[in-house]
């Protein structure tokens, strides 16, 4: 049997098998696909408290901080004052802060904002559609999006003023 | 109707016991005076087989009647499943008898079926209506086929065990003799479990405990108090429990915290009782015989051709393996896909079915490609069924999963 003309076949078979192996390992490692750093922030529509229809792409050209929160979430309450303060610092520098409420009614959200003294815009996600698209599993979760709509950073958990400042600097237009 | 089917089952059990005794006479009595050993063995072997067959018919009656009366295959709770498995062991024996015409195989296969049947009887016997999760004909197909596969594999175990008893040298104590004694004591643990639970069930003494259940997401907050009732005297108490109704003994210790579920401690208690009673039973028999159990049995098998039982063991596995594959894996996947939208979920029971399958795959490759015959092959046949038992008993009773039926 001539070994020479069989070897390419075997090389081909082994090649396919190795490709399968690489693919399997790759997909086992990248299972928890999240929306994260470097991704383009998925667009979404929402209603701002007060009734105005809005969408994320309206804010192209500005740095955007999207903070997912719920009124039942204690750590969300903790970070609200810091967010509010930073919002005042940066709102004139082309950065928009958005509090994205998850699954609650406008009344609850409005009251919460009032109680916490929050004045940045609150957008609603009553059916949690945005939350699902961003694969938010625990809150507070904050997305820092630059003027081109690319996510520059994600932070899960309550933030201090310093953390916010550090991240916002990256997306300031 | 159901009474009739229960009576038929009881009759089958008695017949299996009687035929076990007849088989025992067949293999031990051939050395009695004035007997032609061959003729003696053949005659009693045939009588034993006939009784087994009547028992099989009676159990067939039980299965058929219970199926009709309950409206679903009698495999929907632990009692029904184990009883059905014992039925499948008998079917497996009949299949291999048809091929090899070896009645003496029954001396090991039939008592196994009888033990299974007795084991079944410690679980609640009622015909329960099917809860929605079990309402699927794929489930019935899956469970019956898997049981049939396991039953035939059990015959592989029986004849593998026979092979080992026949061939492992008993003059000196070796690793092999020790393991063989261990396997025998595992079988005795099942017997012990049956005896203990039957005895205590009739004594009508109970221990009742109350213990807190913590919230899943806040492990320090008590969600509610649970009560659990032990039929066996309590050696192990549930964690942080109080005795509501004291039983015959005070518990010696508490179950470790990682054992999950309401009944975890009770199951552990049952396990401890089975092991203890098996060990005691083994010790008694050993004292009585004054030699290793396998050594005592060896002379009774000395005229059996070891190659034939080796082949029977392999053949049983060769027949059982495809059926097991079909029932425990393929049909299980189809059902799981219908019920949960995924054909495989790495549920403990599924994983153990896979382990059994992988084990027998290794057995077949070793035997067919690596020439593992005789002793090695027999050890694997025995170990394979021990894994099935683990799947059946331990996974069902200890690890709570999607498949858990009612437990003792």
């Amino acid at each position: 049997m001539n070994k020479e003309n069989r070897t390419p076949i075997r090389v081909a078979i082994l090649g396919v098998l190795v490709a399968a192996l690489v693919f399997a390992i790759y997909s086992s490692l990248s299972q928890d696909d999240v929306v994260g750093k470097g991704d383009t922030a998925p667009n979404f529509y929402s209603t701002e408290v007060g009734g105005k229809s809005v969408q994320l792409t309206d804010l192209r050209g500005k740095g955007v901080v999207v903070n997912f929160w719920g009124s039942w979430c204690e750590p969300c309450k903790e970070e609200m004052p810091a967010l509010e303060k930073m919002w005042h610092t940066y709102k004139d520098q082309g950065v928009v802060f958005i509090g994205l409420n998850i699954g609650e009614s406008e009344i609850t959200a409005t009251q919460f904002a009032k109680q916490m003294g929050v004045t940045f815009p609150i957008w609603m996600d009553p059916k949690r559609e945005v939350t699902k698209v961003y694969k938010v599993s625990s809150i507070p979760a904050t997305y820092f999006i630059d003027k081109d709509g690319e996510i520059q950073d994600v932070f899960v958990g309550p933030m201090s003023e310093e953390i916010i400042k550090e991240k916002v600097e990256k997306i300031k237009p | 109707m159901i009474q009739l089917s229960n009576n038929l089952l009881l009759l089958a059990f008695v017949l299996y016991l009687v035929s076990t005794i007849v088989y025992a006479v067949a293999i031990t009595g051939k050395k009695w005076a004035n007997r032609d050993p061959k003729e003696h063995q053949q005659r009693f072997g045939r009588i034993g087989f006939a009784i087994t067959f009547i028992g099989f018919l009676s159990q067939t009656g039980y299965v058929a009647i219970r199926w009709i009366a309950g409206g679903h295959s009698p495999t929907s709770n632990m009692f029904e499943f184990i009883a059905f498995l014992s039925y499948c062991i008998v079917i497996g024996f009949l299949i291999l008898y048809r091929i090899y015409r070896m009645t003496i195989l029954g001396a090991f296969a039939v008592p196994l079926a009888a033990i299974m049947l007795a084991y079944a009887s410690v679980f609640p016997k009622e015909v329960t209506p099917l809860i929605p999760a079990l309402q699927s004909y794929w489930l019935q197909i899956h469970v019956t086929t898997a049981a049939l596969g396991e039953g035939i594999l059990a015959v592989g175990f029986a004849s593998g065990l026979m092979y080992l008893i026949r061939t492992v040298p008993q003059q000196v104590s070796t690793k092999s003799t020790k393991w063989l004694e261990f396997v025998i004591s595992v079988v005795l643990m099942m017997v012990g479990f049956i005896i203990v639970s039957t005895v205590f069930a009739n004594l009508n003494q109970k221990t009742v405990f109350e213990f807190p259940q913590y919230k899943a997401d806040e492990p320090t907050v008590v969600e509610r108090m649970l009560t659990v009732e032990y039929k066996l005297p309590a050696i192990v108490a549930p964690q942080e429990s109080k005795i509501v109704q004291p039983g015959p003994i005070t518990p010696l210790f508490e179950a470790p915290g990682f054992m999950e579920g309401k009944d975890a401690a009770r199951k552990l208690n049952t396990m401890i009782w089975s092991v203890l009673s098996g060990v005691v039973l083994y010790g008694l028999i050993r004292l009585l015989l004054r030699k290793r159990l396998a050594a005592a049995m060896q002379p009774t098998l000395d005229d059996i051709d070891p190659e034939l039982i080796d082949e029977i063991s392999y053949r049983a596995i060769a027949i059982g393996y495809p059926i097991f594959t079909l029932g425990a894996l393929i049909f299980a996947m189809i059902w799981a896909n219908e019920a949960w939208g995924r054909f495989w979920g790495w549920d403990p029971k599924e994983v153990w079915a896979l382990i059994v399958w992988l084990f027998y795959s290794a057995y077949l490759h070793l035997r067919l490609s690596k020439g593992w015959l005789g002793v090695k092959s027999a050890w694997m046949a025995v170990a394979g069924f021990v894994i099935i038992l683990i799947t059946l008993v331990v996974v069902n009773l200890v690890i709570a999963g999607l498949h858990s039926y009612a437990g003792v």
Partner: protein
Amino acid sequence: MNDTRKCECGHTNPVGTRLCEACGKPTEAYIQTQDPQAPEFPSMRYEGMARRSKINTRSPIDKVWNFFSSVKIAIILIVITLIASGVGTIFPQQRYIPVPVPTEESVAQFYSTTYGTLGDLYYLLGFHNLYSSWWFVTLLVMIGMSLVICSLDRIIPLYKALKKPRLNQHLSFYLGQKMHGVTDEGVSFNTSETLEKAAEGLKKKGYRVFQNGDSLMGEKARFSRWGPYINHVGLILFLLGVLLRSVPGFYMDDFVWVREGQTISVPNTPYYVKNVEYKTEYYSEDEFAQDLPIKEGEVIPKNFESKLIIYLNENEGVAGAPPKLTQVTEGSVRVNHPLTHESISYYQSGKREMELGALNFDLVNRTNNQRVGQIKVDLYEPAAEQKVGEGITVRVLDYYPDFFMDKNGMPSTKSSAPNNPMVALEVSDGKVKEKLVYVSGSLISNETNPVYELAIRKPDLLDVTGLMVRKDTMIPLIYFGCFISMVGLVMGFYWQHRRIWFHREGDRLYLAGHTNKNWFGLRQEVNQIIEPLQLPIPITVAPDVDKKKSKKEKEVRPT
């Protein structure tokens, strides 16, 4: 002449051949192995053919090929997988633990508090996600590779060997078979008559008979030799199907809770699903086959069922955008009976019953004790304002779905679900403005002597159904793989390849038999076939021995 490839019959065998392809004599190369453990006659397992993995062992490609073509490696892979699978059942996998939001900390916390140090270790080693870990996946793929290469390495030479019936073999071939026999010296027989009878007997037993001169072979169920390989092909297809599920879009697995009356978007699809109605049915006692020892008030569920409508969103599916829905299908889902549309299946797999949907009140004017009208507070989408009767407005000022007082004494909510709703209302008719608070089934007014009061009516209760939404495009391939695998198993295990040879050389008749399993059966069949020959042929069945053991033989004389 030192060319070991050349057999004395004149045939040149490929390197690595152990039994001459033409005459069946053990090859010079085999005889010269000088391995004291090798039996005198090579194993018939692969018909003594040359196998690729045994020939070339030098290049790296050969090395990889040979690694995966080894049955020993395959068995080792199987055993490692078996043990690893078992390890994964010691503690529950992450997907089965009762942690609602599986963040890394909470999962680690769970294993640590529930299982102690061992749990910590289990988590650290990544065993909580063992079956999707890269190394477990690697094991499975390696088994797949072993399946492909093992099968290719063996099936090609085996096919070549079995294609041509072995007739007129070298005597050592017949005598080397596990079952063989030869007539005693001096026993005379009529060759053609004997072979004719033998052929007849073989045919009667269902053998295909090949004859060449005074050499005869009966063969049965050759196809059973392909069984293992067909089984392997099935397993490869199965594994391929599983692997391809990782391709984006081929597999989807989601879960949604849908309230009665609610229509929500199915994640990652253009579909919306509406829960029209959910119900649980219970067995009535006359449906039991026998009396059951169940306690008073205990019931056994019979059916969990949701009526669903599936809609297609014709707009571009941007989250939060108002959809344009068209109904595509409707139907019921029950446990074990999913609803499928366009390869997406909806499974009944959870329920929350009798949850508060809306609070209902009657607004009563206390001055004349007149019922003014009805107020409904939807607990999911409370209307900010509603008109009741003549010029009366009721506004919802504040709403806490799951009310409690937080550590600072501030009203707060534990979750977004209306488990314990607290609603602050304001009733105004232009003259008076009164505030009312509903909490935990009672009402408090801010006035000591209010004009308006509320009478609590039965609230709207609704059921929430939990739907699993799944898509698995690979199911047909996976099932097909299972089917092929089963066909292979049945072929391989329920039939046996049997060959029986009769061969005259000199004045003696040689008989040999080979099967891949059930020698007992073959022995019986041979007895039945040679009985009509009226010719004593002492037959030997050599016991299978481990290579290390000495070879002993056992004589059986047919009666």
